[in-house]
């Protein structure tokens, strides 16, 4: 479904381009759940945002194929309509726009894209009420402005609600677990877990192992300094929990030294 090869991404900082991702390789197949972990600043969120189409980053090298096509050919809204969904780490507030209005516009944009008729208000409400119940959310939340005055937990649940309604092919969850108390975490995790299906791939970006207690991933990748330092099964997350990020950071530092050394060697 998703093939990332040698992806390099930077962000403009003054006149220079500050590199963030420095050669990511990752293959995600339909039906799989991948966890992307790593310390602050390792590039996890950048990866999530770049996949969704955030244009404040510059892709300097590499290639991302999604469903066989070049992902970077598509503007963000096209990616969404093709089934990519990003659950935001910090969902933004949009004053005056009812939550339900955004959700309906989003769903209908996808349906139109697929050549399906738009859902009318009645059908839409029926659909969303079912999902709402599963998320344990108050119906009043639908009529409040998008994310405005939502608690941290409500915002994250709202993201999962959107995901459930939009039924993406590739869901990317950017630290959806951060800032949640244990009960909210359970609800959100159940929501994600229920979305697992053979047709769908999920990328979980997270700091902590605890989310992975509820959603056991097929693969775990640890990002460090813009590269995938280690990949493995669920046990990798546990080891990481035990040994801390310094463990992989140490590896990365060693790797950079070795690289620098070999370059010097080649020059000599």
């Amino acid at each position, binding site marked *: 479904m998703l093939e990332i090869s040698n992806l390099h991404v930077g962000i403009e900082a003054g006149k220079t381009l500050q590199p963030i991702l420095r050669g990511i390789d990752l293959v995600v197949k339909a039906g799989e759940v991948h966890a992307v972990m790593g310390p602050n600043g390792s590039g996890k969120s950048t990866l999530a945002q770049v996949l969704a189409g955030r244009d404040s980053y510059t892709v300097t090298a590499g290639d991302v194929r999604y469903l066989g096509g070049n992902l970077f050919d598509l503007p963000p*809204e096209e990616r969404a309509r093709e089934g990519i969904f990003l659950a935001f780490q910090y969902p933004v507030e949009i004053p005056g726009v009812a939550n339900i209005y955004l959700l309906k516009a989003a769903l209908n944009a996808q349906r139109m894209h697929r050549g399906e008729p738009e859902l009318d208000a009645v059908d839409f409400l029926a659909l969303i009420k079912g999902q709402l119940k599963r998320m344990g959310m108050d119906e009043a939340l639908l009529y409040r402005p998008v994310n405005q005055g939502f608690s941290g937990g409500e915002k994250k649940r709202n993201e999962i609600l959107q995901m459930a309604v939009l039924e993406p092919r590739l869901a990317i969850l950017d630290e959806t677990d951060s800032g949640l108390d244990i009960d909210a975490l359970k609800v959100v995790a159940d929501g994600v877990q229920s979305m697992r299906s053979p047709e769908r791939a999920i990328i979980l970006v997270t700091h902590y192992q605890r989310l992975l207690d509820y959603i056991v991933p097929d693969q775990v990748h640890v990002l460090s300094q813009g590269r995938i330092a280690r990949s493995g099964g669920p046990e990798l997350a546990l080891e990481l929990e035990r040994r801390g990020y310094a463990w992989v950071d140490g590896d990365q530092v060693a790797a950079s030294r070795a690289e620098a050394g070999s370059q010097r060697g080649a020059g000599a």
Partner: protein
Amino acid sequence: MATQALKLDELINQGYRPGFTTFLEADTVPRGLTEDVIRLISAKKAEPEFMLEWRLKAYRHWLTMTEPHWSTVRHPAIDYQDISYYSAPRSRADGPRSLADVDPELLLTYEKLGVPLQERELLAGVAVDAVFDSVSVATTFKDKLAGLGIIFCSFSEAVQEHPQLVRQYLGSVVPYTDNYFATLNSAVFTDGSFCYIPPGVRCPMELSTYFRINASKTGQFERTLIIADTGAYVSYLEGCTAPMRDENQLHAAVVELIALEGAQIKYATVQNWYPGDKDGRGGIYNFVTKRGDCRGANARISWTQVETGSAITWKYPSVILRGDNSVGEFRSVALTNNYQQADTGTKMIHLGRNTRSTIISKGISAGHGRNAYRGLVNVAKSAVGARNYTQCDSLLLGDQCAAHTFPYIEVKNPTAQVEHEASTSRIGEDQLFYCQSRGIAAEEAVTMIVNGFCKEVFKELPMEFAVEAQKLLSVSLEGSIG
């Protein structure tokens, strides 16, 4: 960033949509302003002596005044001698008796603007007093309204048919000495709307006027006078649009509202005059004086305006809260794009006890647009227990536009409560990206975000107007991605 900026330019450069000219033989007086011109206007309209006298007093006073320059708006000097002060469609000479008698081309013009009169008559139940250039040409529903004792007609007709009412109320809210442009209007105004609701009558339909500037270099000077007698109610809608023109056209209207004891007047405007081209050439100068007077206890006046057009919008629809417990409201959406300028707001003058006022102002600036909110809340010594709430929000799209807020608060009574809240924000990349990542195109997302920003104002508009206002905003904003 780069691609979005490019798209922004492309979309902003879309032309103004209602741009066309109707060919009508205009009955236009030569350019320039003298006492003779005023006598001519008054004579053409067969006005009673008191009107001519009033006009002449205004003109003589105007000669002693100088054009004000205290606002933030900038424009080349206006040559008042280069304006023709009277222009009437020639078909008026024969006097159309019904819509069937109205120049078909004129009706076509309204149709192009999406204002088919007949349809409105039948479907919307809106009585339309359409001002084309300076003379009203079609007034509908008059009979039905007349049955309730409601007078809704052109100003000229009111001068002929109801001179006592005109004499009693004209200039009683905006005196002919009020300000440079209102004084000019008093001297030369050619037509407008007149409305009188008798005591205890609730006007059963929204009253509506569509204004339109047409003949080149003809300044338009409308005068609107609305009186709601004791316990009466009226909701009045004013909408306007203008065809594409190269030269700036001065538009200096005066609107006076009078609400007697327990009466309520709602006045809503959707203003879409030609805003000028993308480089700021042309466009209407919209210098308007609008003021309401809550003359009795428990009276209520509300202004709702959506200002998307004009090169320059300069107006402060105000309320004098004279009666005890009277209520004044002002809700505004002002959008400036390209090189448009707006300096708008309100004045709430609290004189009576327990008077209340609410001000909600939403300014949106895009392109090189400049938008200023200027408002005065004045609580006189007599206004025991007066209350005001003001909320002023500015939204910026792009990095070339400007927003200013000038709130003036003068309180002379210690029991008054005055609140002022203000915010300035940009349409964030974050908001846009969030919508896009849900499959919503950037352009639609901007419209959604801006409409959300304006919601508090739109919800006060009658349904059909709210829809029109949202459409206007999206047309005016297409692609304004910051």
